[in-house]
């Protein structure tokens, strides 16, 4: 804990040693929330480096800090100590450069805007010209199969379509890094399978780096190149699993022995990280 970033840190914050060459580099990062019931340690001693083009899932029971970790990467939470870099800069600078797209648990579409103008929202904020906005909206709506729903309002669409629109909104920024916080958690199994397949194709096509928070084991194994298993109280990394599944996999890969073996290892990790509780 010698290289702590404190509130009095110098104007040039220190970077983790692995900052060059990694999209995300995290070194000995901790975060403590001050609550009315006293301090709660949400993250403790996190070390993680994510390379370009990886699909990394953060999996763990609720309260393990997986969402908090994603929010730290997105500069939505400030770590108490430790080092973190995103695209070789501080999370704050990365956010200001709009170098990531964030997909929330819920679609969070603005109800007074049509689907098309919801997707155009970040582009308006970035100050892109109108023609460019229209082009990107069209392209990304095609990408998530929402063509024809441009003039609908969010509340006229199903939950799955809303979440697809929110993914299109994140993609419209054209970031190399996509941060997704349980984006399909509220959807039913069938819609979720379908969107998982689409997301995988999207990732294979665009070569983006994706960090994906989930609490579903099949989802994590199916989507990821690497699975980070986390355990709660305090939130920490318990295991990191390389999957090594072929890039052009379909949903039926979930019946194969390799897949089941990986799922078994993830489940073991979750159970071990949990065991001290009972």
């Amino acid at each position: 804990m010698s290289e702590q970033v404190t509130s009095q840190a110098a104007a040039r914050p220190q970077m983790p040693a692995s900052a060059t060459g990694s999209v995300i580099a995290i070194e000995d990062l901790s975060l403590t929330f001050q609550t009315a019931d006293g301090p709660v340690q949400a993250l403790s001693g996190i070390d993680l480096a994510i390379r370009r083009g990886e699909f990394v899932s953060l999996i763990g029971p609720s309260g393990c800090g997986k969402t908090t970790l994603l929010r730290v990467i997105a500069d939505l939470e400030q770590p108490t100590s430790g080092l973190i870099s995103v695209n070789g800069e501080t999370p704050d600078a990365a956010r200001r450069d709009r170098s990531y797209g964030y997909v929330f648990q819920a679609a969070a579409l603005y109800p007074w805007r049509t689907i098309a103008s919801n997707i155009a929202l970040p582009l308006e904020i970035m100050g892109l010209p109108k023609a460019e906005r229209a082009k990107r909206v069209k392209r990304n709506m095609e990408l998530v199969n929402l063509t024809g729903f441009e003039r609908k309002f969010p509340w006229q669409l199903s939950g799955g379509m809303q979440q697809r629109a929110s993914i299109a909104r994140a993609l419209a920024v054209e970031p190399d890094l996509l941060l997704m916080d349980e984006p399909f958690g509220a959807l039913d199994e069938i819609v979720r399978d379908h969107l998982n397949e689409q997301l995988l194709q999207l990732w294979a096509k665009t070569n983006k780096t994706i960090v994906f928070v989930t609490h579903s084991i099949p989802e994590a194994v199916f989507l990821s190149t690497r699975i980070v298993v986390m355990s709660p109280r305090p939130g920490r990394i318990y295991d990191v699993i390389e999957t090594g599944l072929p890039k052009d996999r379909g949903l039926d890969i979930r019946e194969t022995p390799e897949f089941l073996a990986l799922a078994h290892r993830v489940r073991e990790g979750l159970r071990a990280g949990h065991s001290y509780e009972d």
Partner: protein
Amino acid sequence: MNGAAADMATGSSTGPLTPARAPVLAYPAALLAFTAIPMPVATGGSIVAGSSLLAAALLLIIPALGIPRPPALRLVLVGAVTIAAFLLILANLSPVEGKASLGYWLLLASAGVMAVQMMRGLAHRAGSGSLRARLISLSVPVVFGLWLLILWECIVRGAGVPTVLLPPPSDIAVRFASSLDILWADFRQTFLKAVIAGYVMGCGSGFLVALLVDRVPFLRRGLLPVGNMVSALPIIGIAPIMVMWFGFDWPSKAAVVVVMTFFPMLVNTVSGLSAAGGMERDLMRTYAATHAQSLVKLRLPAALPFIFNALKINSTLALIGAIVAEFFGTPIVGMGFRISTEVGRMNIGMVWAEITVAAIAGSLFYGIVAMIERAFTFWHPSYRH
């Protein structure tokens, strides 16, 4: 009216899909009308009055006999006949005035019961689907208001209530029509000058200060409690002071309106600005949006339902404020001035004419604001469909 009684009407024999409800109330109405036929209508009433009341009673009985017809047609028939009966009663009022006896009241009760029956039929067919259903739902409050006026007229005249206490609507209407120029001058003075100016300034400044309070945290802690105190000040107290500050003419009334409308707008806008959800705000943060951008694109749209709420509350507050403020010194024109002086001269018809103007202006004002609200907050869960 549509609840238990209606269920009892349809309950036993007719299925739930039968749209026509048995006009149960027609039978007591017919009974009342029938009983009224041989009775004297008024002590010393003329033969004309008696015979037309007889005709009215017969008219009321006809639809009550339950002649089978398509429901819509029967509704029209019932309505037409009841209105005809009322007009007959009204036509004979002058000899009856203040001297009505049992026959008159029985007939009135009968017509009233038929009116209730007709309202039930209308309300049952109201809806938002077809044009016809929408016309009917629009007609429900109109018809209801008309019945109220008719009953008011008949009761006040039949019982001979002194006009100082409560003039009949026809007197008010005559007074209204004969003093249009005065009413217009008062309306212009009070509404078009004081109310509109005060409303725009009060709501506008409340909105702007809310934006400031939102940006400067200490104002939220310091200004809002003080604001609540000021908004609790009685208008009776501030009106004379405003007259001293801004003179007798409309600016002092506008100032009262500003004081009354400022704080509802401020408080509503401030709470509206924090109405946007956490996720929606985080989204703006991930886009590195500036304060102004997230204000314009997220927080103000999310605050619109609150802002319109204040605009609606203020539309009625402004009118009350301007009228009451005129009680404390004004040039010899204005709705509040007219009300206070005509009451002193026992000229109650004129007071009621002013009240009518205020009611119409207030409802229109509120209605226009509500219409604009619907256009701007169509996305809100209470309006979407």
